């Protein structure tokens, strides 16, 4: 991958900061072209990778790339809050890598500034230049590990003093490139969060079209020295590999479909006997992510009956049911029901929780603070409709498309959080921490299941 330049702009394409690594493209005009793209191309036609041909014209349709002959540049951009991070290249670069790089860069900035937005960019020009220089040299990616980068960055000069030499960045020459030596914590603790997000797509007729679990084991490590960690999960394949077929069969184990690890995990070891062993980086990181593509009973089920009476009113009857064990509780459940844009005078009746109408989002939100397992609740909503619907009013120039506009029939979305529970049934069996100095470290483990992309289509 070769990036000619990297720049950051606000949402209108106004440049905030830029670095021209190779000098093989005119950067100022490139940024102008990017701004033109943002302004002139329809939102629906925008793509994260686009080409500007040799004449400087934006090629909107990817199929047309190359139709005006060779030359020009390709822009790759990712959005982060109210910013765009954009890379430009004039070579046939590896795009997956460039995108990953930009994400990673955003993560590094975020790590440094807390939040990454226009304000934090403006407040940190000098650090950003330093970071841009250390993460990429001459358009080729260098070090992107924020813990390691810290040893390079002079940020406010704290590490630098007239009377003391800057310490050479130890980690760079180290085999453990993600952890510096000599880390000390007063209290040796490690926090482990198993977070599972449930993606669900239910068709209007109630059949589950797609369900999958995206899990992550997140860690916050505050351990001194160079600790060796070993994590034991109730992984079915691990039980089988170690000859504990009984446990594998007993149903207490989980078959993880595809696992991805942080670079600190010894992959060969895992391939061999499925042991997860690693030296953790200091601070926060995602140890592993996994995916399960199993049929899951929707944890929170929602049924909606809608009765529109054209020109007068529309009535909703919403039924929701929690389909998990009664000792678990779902917190802060929000059921978001879309309604037509032109409704008025809302009235609600619900057996539990509170209901609010959000006109700016054209939706009704039914909030249930605590939703115990195995319960069922009902909510009714009633709205007035104007006597002439908006479609009819617009209908004239749409060539008689009246009645066909179903844009308000978005899917129902549900948000929830169930602590002390994992849908997949994954469990941490042990977390062993061994360090030369032999200190006792405390591991803390939490489980949580939350909604991912959780949608139920409305009939």
């Amino acid at each position, binding site marked *: 991958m070769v990036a000619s330049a990297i720049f950051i702009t606000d949402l209108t394409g106004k440049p905030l900061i830029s670095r021209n690594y190779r000098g093989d493209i005119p950067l100022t005009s490139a940024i102008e072209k990017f701004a033109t793209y943002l302004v002139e191309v329809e939102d629906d036609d925008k793509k994260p990778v686009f080409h500007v041909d040799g004449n400087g014209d934006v090629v909107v349709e990817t199929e047309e790339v*190359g139709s005006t002959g060779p030359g020009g540049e390709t822009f790759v951009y990712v959005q982060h809050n109210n910013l765009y991070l954009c890379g430009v290249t004039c070579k046939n670069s590896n795009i997956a890598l460039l995108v*990953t790089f930009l994400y990673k860069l955003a993560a590094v900035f975020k790590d440094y500034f807390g939040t990454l937005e226009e304000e934090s960019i403006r407040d940190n020009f000098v650090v950003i230049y330093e970071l841009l220089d250390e993460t990429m040299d001459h358009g080729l990616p260098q070090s*992107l590990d924020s813990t390691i980068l810290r040893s390079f960055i002079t940020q406010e000069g704290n590490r630098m003093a007239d009377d003391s030499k*800057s310490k050479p960045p130890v980690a*760079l*020459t180290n085999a453990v490139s993600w952890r510096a030596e000599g880390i000390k914590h007063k209290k040796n603790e490690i926090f482990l969060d198993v977070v599972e997000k449930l993606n669900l797509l239910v068709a209007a007729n109630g059949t589950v079209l797609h369900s999958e679990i995206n899990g992550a084991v997140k860690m916050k490590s505050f351990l001194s020295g160079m600790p060796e960690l070993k994590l034991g999960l109730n992984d079915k394949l691990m039980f089988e590999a170690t000859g504990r077929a009984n446990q594998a069969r007993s149903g207490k184990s989980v078959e993880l479909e595809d696992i991805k690890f942080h670079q600190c995990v010894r992959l060969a070891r895992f391939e061999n006997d499925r042991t997860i062993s690693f030296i953790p980086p200091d601070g926060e990181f995602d140890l592993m992510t996994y995916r399960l593509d199993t049929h899951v009973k929707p944890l929170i089920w929602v049924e909606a009956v809608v009765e529109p009476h054209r020109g007068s009113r529309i009535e909703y009857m919403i039924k929701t049911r929690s389909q998990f064990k009664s000792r678990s509780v779902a917190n802060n459940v929000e059921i978001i029901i879309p309604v037509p844009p032109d409704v008025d005078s809302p009235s609600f009746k619900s057996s539990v929780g509170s209901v609010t109408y959000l006109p700016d989002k054209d939706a009704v939100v039914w909030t249930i603070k605590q939703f115990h397992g195995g319960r069922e609740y009902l909510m009714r909503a009633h709205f007035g409709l104007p006597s002439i619907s908006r479609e009819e009013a617009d209908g004239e120039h749409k*060539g008689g498309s009246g009645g066909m506009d179903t844009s308000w029939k978005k899917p129902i979305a549900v948000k929830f959080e169930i602590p002390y529970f994992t849908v997949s049934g994954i469990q941490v069996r042990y977390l062993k921490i061994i360090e030369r100095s032999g200190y006792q470290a405390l591991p803390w483990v939490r489980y949580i299941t939350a909604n991912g992309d959780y949608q139920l289509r409305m009939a």
Partner: protein
Amino acid sequence: LHSYRRRTMATFPPNRTSNMPVPGGPGGAPPPGAPPGASSSAGRDESYFTESRKGEVNELRMLLRTFATERDKQRKRDIMKKVIAYMTLGIDVSRLFTEMMLAIETRDLVIKKMVYLFLCNYAETHPDLAQMCTNTLVKDCGNEDPMVRGLALRSLCSLRLPQMIEYTSEPLRRSLQDGHAYVRKTGVMGILKMYHLNKEEFDKASFNDILYDMLRDPDSSVVTNCILVLNEIMADSGGMALNRAVMLHLLNRIHEFSEFGILSVLDLVPRYIPANDDEGFQIMNLLDPVLRTANAGAVVATIRAFLSIADAVGKRAGDDRDEDSPTVDDLKHQVVVRIKAPLVTLLASGSSELTYVLLKYVDQLIDLCPGIFDDEYRVFYVRYHDQSHIKHSKVRILAKLANPDNAPDIVAELGELVANVDEMMGRIAVQSMASIAMHDSGGQGAVESIARRLVEMLDLHGIPHISSEAATALASLVRRHPSIVSVVSAPLPRALKYISEPAGKASVIFLLGECGESIVEAPYVLEKVIDSYDSIADAAVKTALLGATVKLFFYRPPEVKNMLGKVLKKATEDVSSQDLHDRALFYYRLLRSSPDTNIAKSIVTSKSMTMSTKHFAEEDDSELRAALMHEFNTLCTIYRCKAENFIDEENIVKFVKVPKEHPLPREAPVTPVTDPGVNTNTNHMGGVAMADAPQQSVTTVPSTVSAEVDLLGFGDDLSAMSVPTPAPVGPASLQSLSLKSEVILNGEDYQNKWSSVPDAEAVIIPALAMSTGPTSTDGVEEPLKAFNVFTMASGELSTEFKFFLYGQEEDAYGGGFFLIQAVVSKAPFNLSLTIKPNGGDTNPTKRKEKIDQLVELIKSALGEYFP
């Protein structure tokens, strides 16, 4: 962590920073008395970012003038920061160049960094002033702090001033030997910058060999940069020169690389042709764990590497390999099966930009191995919040995933999307549905049920673009499956009235012609259209009208005769479209000239329009797809376009695969070789058969000393021993070195002796230029034998000869062994030696002397090849 955050949150303007105590910072205490004007209370100092007035730059200049006398470091830094902030905001502060450069002599690295930044930014516009700073930069390249050395070097190389080249090459050369990896890696990158600045000077400096040597650097980030740089400076000759030893050396170290560094190695793999099948599989096993990393770039690069290996080791048609070995297609199939789960995970967890890119890759992989992603079709269901380009990609992919099992689900899902508010989305959904029918991928009855759905859509007069799209789809479908005519015909006359889009209208008219036999009112609806011929703007509609009328004429001559005359007249007089005009004339002449209408009928109504293949000719892009597969994981995949069509010629790199042919016979046992000169670390990858080289290679060496021994398993036919070349005139004068004429050493001993000498003690003589080269290994072995340098093993590769040689001193001189690895590369001819002394003199200077003499001896023995 906490204190860190506070530090990083310190912000412009300076009044805020100065109010914030900096924990653990140097100097500690806040500046005595806040600077005047910087004590403004809450909120932002707006003037900081408002448009500059000239006065402000002048104000800065005044501040900078006080710089030398300013004693407080924090205030100094704040002044600098202000300059940088102005620069970033696009205000031209280049007028401050002189003042800034006065500040370059500082011991404060923070200030230094900022001055360097300023310098790099304005050097191109102020070359003369910049040149004056060279001395400081060069001096800093020798600073005792590696951070400063690295920084100075990077800045020096980034000035982009061609006239500075002469100052850069020396510090660069020194940096490559630096004790600190940070400086070395910066130096390597500096070489690339020099290359782009001035190629001639770069050639003179001849850094290439050093870079190749540095591939053995103990620090992986240096190695990464070496690979990246070599690839770029060797782009004209197809990328970094690669041989088996280098490739395997890098692969054996792959676990040391950072998540981005690993990419540099992964990108080399597709260029390497494995020595034989087993080696190919070993490489795949070695790389397999990379698929578990969270870095999407690395995962995709691994996929590309796998596919390329499959290409190299798989069996092709006409291949004489044994029956059992898998074919290229089988292997690729296996590869795609293996990478499916990791890709799907990335898709499910990726953010929208990454998903967009990955969907393009998946699309291409499906084309490569149809059927593999079929069972994951639900992943490609459209989510409400997906961006429209992602929705579009998904819907196109869904059509390719259809098989008899899932087609009902997929078609139903597509049906849901047709009425989508996004017009494009609806169109693509219809096209995808049609494509399932066109490819017959839906199984029994699918074609008819899809046709029925399309007919329903034709009647969706509320959504004009869908009716039109459905009509177009049906027109294609009728050509592929003529049997659906009965399903299609009924609603056509109605549809003609309300379909307004030209493409759709043309399709309906075409269909009316095709189904003319079974639609009673066909001539009458067409007649109305003909009557309004002059108001039709679109040529496609007119052409369809002409075609349909002619066809209809043969089915029902009496009804259509008049219409035909009208339309032929209109069309022949129509000058708006050449094609239409010519067609009309053609039909006219055909009808007029054929005495028997049956001939004309057989021409016009022949069923040759019916397709027997699944594609239209213009859709068959197998050639393009194959070409794109070679450039998988680049922009080509995103754009579905070959690189030469959209990349400037000078920016195109055509990588060459090496070695050109299999150096090993396919049956030969694999003997993975790492360069013996390289000390590979213990292999974390466990279980992978890429062990250290010498142990393994030596097992194939018989214990007797013989020139035929094939140490590397290169498998050359060495049995035909040629007549020894005449011995040269006699050894050059030797004082302290005298070699025994008979040495007994077997392979194992050789091996032990080699590995007992640490690599650090090896003497490496790189690339002695030769005028010509030997034609076979004997050409080297025989002359050396005459000088008592013997061969343990040798072999020929396509690009080089390789020898493992040895010699022993006379006992009187110490009796030490010299183990030599000699490589004669073929193009251009040159000789590299790695010599390890074993036993004998321990005095380093004497040892050095002996080795020097040994080199001279080898050179004189091979005198015929040297100029």
